[in-house]
C-alpha cells in the first residue's frame, strides 16, 4: 500500500480520515475487495480510489456518476461506489447527480464536501456559503448554496446521509450502511479543506454538527431537517426509505445471443420501423 506521503493531499486534509475509515469499512463488508469498483471524477477527493485496494475507473471531472451507471448496468454483481468532491458531483456533474438518482440503481454516491474547489486553488463550489470571498468571487459568493441532502430527498433518493470527517466511528457506520443499502445511497461527507476553506473549518463544524439518531420517516419533515445549516448542521442518516424499490437489472454479462434471436430480428425487421 502507498505511504501517507505518496497520497497527494495536504497534511491535515479531511480526506485522510475518510480514507482510513473507508478502508476499514470496505474490509468489514462481506463482499470481497475484488468485487468492489470505484468511479471518480477529478479533484483532490477524486484521488481517493487510488489510495484503496479496489478496482477503479477514475474518469473526467463531473462524470463519476455516469461511469457508475454504465458499470452497474453491465455488472450488477459488482459493488459500485462513486466517489468525488462537491464540485465534481454537484457542479460539473450536477445534471448527472439529478438524473442518476432517478435511475433507482443500487449504487453508492459518496461526496467529499469541503465547500470549495481545492485542486484549482480556492474557487467557490456549488456548496460554498454565501458571502465567502475568494479569487473568482472577490466581492463574496452571491449564489445560493446547493443543498445536496434536500435535493437528493426531493429527487426520490431512498437513503440520504451526511457525516463529518472528524466523527470517524459515526462515519464508518454510515458508510457501511450506505454501501449495504439496496438502492441509491448518498453520503455527503463534510471534509474540511485546511488549505483553502478558512470558513468551514474543523472547529467551525464541530461547534455546529449534531447527530440525528434515526432517519426521519416523513419525507417532507426530512427535507426540513436537511435544509438546516449554519448554526445547526444535522449529521447521520437523515432519510431512509426501505420500501423503495430499486431497478431490476437483467443479466447481460457473458450472456450469449443465439442465432435464432438473430433470425427473429430479421423476420421482425419491418416491425422495428413502426
Amino acid at each position, binding site marked *: 500500500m502507498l505511504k501517507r506521503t505518496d497520497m497527494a493531499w495536504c497534511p491535515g486534509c479531511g480526506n485522510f480520515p475518510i480514507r482510513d475509515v473507508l478502508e476499514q469499512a470496505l474490509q468489514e463488508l462481506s463482499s470481497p475487495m475484488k468485487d468492489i469498483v470505484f468511479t471518480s471524477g477529478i479533484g483532490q477527493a477524486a484521488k481517493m480510489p487510488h489510495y484503496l485496494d479496489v478496482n477503479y475507473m477514475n474518469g473526467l471531472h463531473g462524470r463519476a456518476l455516469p461511469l457508475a451507471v454504465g458499470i452497474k448496468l453491465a455488472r450488477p454483481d459488482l459493488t459500485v461506489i462513486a466517489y468525488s468532491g462537491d464540485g465534481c458531483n454537484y457542479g460539473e456533474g450536477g445534471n448527472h447527480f439529478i438524473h442518476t438518482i432517478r435511475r433507482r440503481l443500487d449504487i453508492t454516491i459518496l461526496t467529499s464536501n469541503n465547500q470549495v474547489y481545492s485542486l484549482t486553488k480556492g474557487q467557490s463550489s456549488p456548496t460554498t456559503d454565501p458571502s465567502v470571498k475568494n479569487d473568482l468571487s472577490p466581492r463574496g459568493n452571491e449564489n445560493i448554496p446547493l443543498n445536496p441532502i434536500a435535493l437528493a430527498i426531493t429527487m426520490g433518493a431512498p437513503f440520504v446521509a451526511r457525516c463529518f470527517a472528524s466523527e470517524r466511528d459515526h462515519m464508518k457506520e454510515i458508510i457501511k450502511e450506505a454501501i449495504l443499502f439496496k438502492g441509491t445511497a448518498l453520503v455527503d461527507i463534510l471534509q474540511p479543506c485546511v488549505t483553502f476553506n478558512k470558513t468551514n473549518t474543523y472547529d467551525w463544524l464541530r461547534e455546529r454538527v449534531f447527530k440525528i439518531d434515526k432517519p426521519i420517516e416523513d419525507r417532507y419533515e426530512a427535507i426540513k431537517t436537511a435544509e438546516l445549516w449554519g448554526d445547526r448542521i444535522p449529521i447521520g442518516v437523515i432519510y431512509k426509505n426501505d420500501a423503495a424499490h430499486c431497478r431490476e437489472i437483467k443479466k447481460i454479462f457473458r450472456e450469449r445471443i443465439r442465432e435464432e434471436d438473430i433470425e427473429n430480428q430479421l423476420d421482425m425487421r419491418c416491425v*422495428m420501423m413502426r
Partner: protein
Amino acid sequence: MEFNVVIGGEAGQGLFSVEIGLTEILSRLNYYFFATKNYMSRIRGGHNFHMIRISDQPVHALSGLKWDMVIALDGETEGRHRPDLRDDGIYLSRELTKEIEKEAQETFQDIRYANTMLVGCVLAVIGASLEKVIEAAENETGQYLKKGFDYALRSNLAGKYPLQPVAGDHCKFDGNQAIALGAILGGCQFMAGYPMTPATSIMHYFSTAALTMPVHFEQAEDEISAINMALGASYAGVRSMVATSGGGFALMQEGVSLAGMTETPVVIVLGQRPGPATGLPTRTEQGELNLVIHAGHGEFPRIIFAPGSIDETIAVARKSFALADRYQIPVFILTDQYFADSIQIVDDDIPKECLSREYPVFDITYKRYTLTEDGISPLTYPGLSDARVRLDSDEHDEDGKITEDLGLRVRMVDKRLKKFAMLARDFMPPTFYGDRNASSVIISWGSNKLIVKEALEKIINEGKSASALHFGQVYPLTAAMVAPYGLEAKRLICVENNAGGQFAGLLKRELGLNVAHSVLKYNGECFTVTELYSELKKLLT
C-alpha cells in the same frame, strides 16, 4: 425497366405509413426497390415527400429520372413535384386522393385506411398480382389493399407500368437497422444514447431488441452521460456503443478523449446531418469528417469507417467491436440521414453468428497498462479474479495510478501511438469499380458509394473509360490502401456532400494526393444518379 413514384404531403398525414406498407409488401413479393425520404423538422404540417424506385434489377440510389407517378396528399405537391412528372405519367391530385380518403371513411369508417389503399393502388400500377398481395398482407390489411386495387382498375391505371418481381431471397433494411443489427452481431450488448435525428432509430431498434435479447439500452440525460455510460459498461466487460449526430457528438468529445487515454474500447456511430449547430435537423450531409478525425483533445489512435452499402454497413458494424477491443481504441462509424433513412434490400447472406468478447483472467500482479512491444496491454475486466483493473484519465503508470513522471509520460504516449503502426496493416481496403486503365478515378466515401457506381455504369455503357474508388474506411488512410491503383498518375474527381471538400483535403494531407475537381452538394439532399452522371460526364470530357 423501372418505376419511380413520389408521394407528397404534410407531416401527420401518414406518409411514413405508406412507405412502410409499400416497402414491406414489395419486399415480400420480391420486387427490387429503393426508397428514401425528404422530411421536415416538425410533427404536423409542412411538406414531406417519400420516393420509391421499383425495378427489375437491384437498385440502391435515387434515379433522378422524371416521376412515373406523383401522389398528392397536400396542395404543395402540385407545384413541387408535378413539373417533374413524365408527360404520360400518373398524377393523383389532391382532389383524387381526397376521394380515396372519402371512400376509406365510407367503407371502413376510418380515413387512415386511405393510406393502405394508396399502397394497393401503386402495387396495381406495377402489375402486382392481387392474390399475392393479399397473401403477403398483414392481418386484415388485405381488404384495404384490395380497395386500392379496385380504385386503380376503375381509373385505368392498373398494370400501366408493369414490372417483374425477380428478387431472390433477401433481407430489407434501412441504414440504421443495418447498423443496429451489425452491432448486435458484433457482440454489442450495451448502448446508451440521447435521441437525435438521424440516429434515434438505432436506439429504438436496440431498445426493442432488449425486450427479447440479453442487450441493454439506457436513455441518458445528455450525450456526455451517454458516452461515459458506454465507457463504464465497456470497462466492466460489455461491448458498448453510442449513436448520435454532430451536435450530440460535440458533447461527447471529452468522452472520446477519455476513451483514448484510458484505452477503453467503444464504438461511436455518427449519423451526419447539415450543421453547424442545429442546422437542418432532418436532412443529409457529410460534414463531420474533419470533426471526427480530430475529436477529443490529445493524441491517440482511432479508426473511422464510412460504409456505403447495407452489407458493408452490417459488416463494418459487426467488426468494429472486435477492432475496438483488439486495439483498445474508439472506433467510429459515419453514416448520414440519407443512408440512415433509405430502405433497400440485400441478398440474404447476412451472418447470423454473434461475435463475443474474450475474458482472459489474470492474477494479482495484473497491471492494466503494462508496457509491451506493440503498445497493446493485456485487457481484462473487474471482478473476474483478484486482479485489480484500474483506469485513469490522468497520465498514469502501468498500474493506472496518476503519474507526473515525465519520462514515463513519453513512454505512455509512445505506447498509445504505437498502435498506428498496427492499424496501417489492418485496414479495410477501398472498393474499386470500372476500368483499371482509365485515366480518371471518381473518389467517394460513405453513402455515395452506390450512387457513384450506377452513374459510372451509365458512363461506361456509353463507351467512355472511367473508374471509381470508394472508401469505406476513411481513417487511417495509408499508402498501402491505395497502392494498387496508382492514384498519383490519375485525374481524381472527389464526390462528397459538404462544402469544404473534406475528403479531398484528407487525401492531400495523408497521402499527398491532389484532387483535380470536387463535386460537392450541400443543400441537405442526396445526389441522384442522373444528376451525378451529368456532372461527371461534363468533367470526364
